[in-house]
């Protein structure tokens, strides 16, 4: 579904990605892990077109998207939950969801506002609240709901549970497990190894802008040296 090869991205003259290569298959949950500043968010921003790569290829659903405008890439079926939530603060919860609703993939059973509310009942209770008045956890739920409302083929979450209380994290992990059951592919960036091992199929560890290790959850849980060296566990 998503195939990233040899991706190189610069911020001005400073190179952030050095030949990033990984892939996500249909229906799979894949993670990008690594310490801060290693290029995980840059990778995601390059995929969606916010920070266009200077070389390499990004193939999504049979299309080369590395040169596409971000809205065109998104319309091919990538739903992004950005780092720091970034909900629209001047729109209400309901408006955040409605504004982004689309079904470019013509799915038979698309995500609707009711389905999002069923997954996150907190959002229905705060439907008319302005999004900037929500707690961090509620904002993350809204960001996930907003991405689901675009009816993506691939859900991309950058720092899915960063800065959230343990109870809220559990809710987010449970929601992601449900989303996974629906068959949606997920690309996930997070630091909670334990939860990621439970949820994901495969993992790519990123160090200095490139993948230095990849394997399944079973392989990673056994590879204690990898965990220690690259994840500081």
């Amino acid at each position, binding site marked *: 579904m998503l195939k990233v090869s040899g991706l190189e991205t610069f911020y001005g003259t400073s190179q952030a990605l050095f030949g990033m290569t990984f892939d996500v298959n249909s229906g799979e949950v894949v993670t990008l892990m690594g310490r801060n500043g290693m290029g995980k968010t840059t990778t995601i921003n390059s995929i*969606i*077109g*916010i920070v266009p790569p200077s070389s390499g290829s990004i193939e999504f659903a049979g299309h080369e998207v590395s040169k596409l*405008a*971000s*809205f065109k890439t*998104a*319309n091919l079926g990538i*739903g*992004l939950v*950005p780092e720091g939530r*970034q909900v*629209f*603060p*001047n*729109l*209400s919860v*309901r*408006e*955040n969801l*409605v*504004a*982004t*609703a*689309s*079904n*470019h993939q013509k799915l038979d059973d*698309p995500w*609707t*506002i*009711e389905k999002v509310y069923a997954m996150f009942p907190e959002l229905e209770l705060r439907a*008319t*609240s*302005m999004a900037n008045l929500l707690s961090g956890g509620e904002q993350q739920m809204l960001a996930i709901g*907003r*991405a689901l409302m*675009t009816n993506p083929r691939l859900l991309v979450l950058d720092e899915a549970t960063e800065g959230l209380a343990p109870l809220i994290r559990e809710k987010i992990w449970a929601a992601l497990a449900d989303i996974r059951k629906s068959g949606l592919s997920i690309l996930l960036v997070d630091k909670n190894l334990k939860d990621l091992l439970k949820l994901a199929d495969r993992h790519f560890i990123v160090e200095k802008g490139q993948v230095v290790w990849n394997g399944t959850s079973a392989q990673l849980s056994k590879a204690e040296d990898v965990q220690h060296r690259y994840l500081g566990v």
Partner: protein
Amino acid sequence: MTDTTSAQLNQHLRTPDLFGSASGRIITLVFMVILLCVPLAAHFLGVRLQLVSLDFITRILCLAIAAVSLNLILGFGGMISFGHAAYIGIGAYCVGIPAYHGYESGWLHFPLAIFASAAFALVTGAVSLRTKGVYFIMITMAFAQMGYYFFLSLDEYGGDDGLTIYSRSMFNIINIENKLVLFLVTYACLVASIYAVYRIVNSRFGMVVRGCQSNEARMKALGYNTYAYKLTAYVIAGGMCGLAGALLGNFTTFISPDMMGWSRSGELMFMVILGGTGSLFGPVFGAVTFVFIEELLSTFTTYWALPFGVLLVLSVLFIKGGLNGLIQRGWRRD
């Protein structure tokens, strides 16, 4: 999205704080009723006070429509246009030039004013919206100044001296030669403009434009061609302001390039900021207050612009959310 779901999505949507508190709504309603009834009462009772005359209020209403249209892009879309008065001038010349050539039909003047302004907005917006921040402000001002100098160079239509309109736009069902009718038509146009903005900002289109104001890159990453959305809003605002220009041209029966100078654009911007950006009625409060204070001060001193400037600076510094914010929450600094 299935049809049913789209219909469901659009149900019961209203920006929570667009009308503000219950008391704020009542004050707004009373204000709009006063704006309609006081000049009418003054007219029928023969009161000769300038500040409540039909002429004075009609001028305010024309400017209020222009401010409402500017608020659509500035207050809801975050597009700080410093050239909005250009559309007033274009709208006014779309009345004046055909009238000069003997075409006096309002059915020609008004659609022409709206479409010509919208077309100018389309061309200039297509370029301007490729820039951001201070560049956008400067380029919109530059385009407006180009319009200003264009009309200045038209000697046939008076150039710098302007053009007198000897006959107002003719409609077969309403006669806006009558100042009472012109006042009522202008008031109706203002209400229609406010309603149009209300519908626009609460539609999904409007939500995307408002979302762009807070985080355009994010809206783009969620699948929206934000440039097209913002340009559409820009064109709608231009057309709406062209209507204000056509009404103003009919009201003053004299048009000149001064109507579209950069200082006029600044005044419109100030009306919006003074009234409260991103609020439905704020621009109306702003336009009324702006013109009233201007008129009052000019009766006391020739140098009215100095105290006027101080008052405006103080109002921006100390009234959060503009006059609309003050009305909605009272004198509470939260």
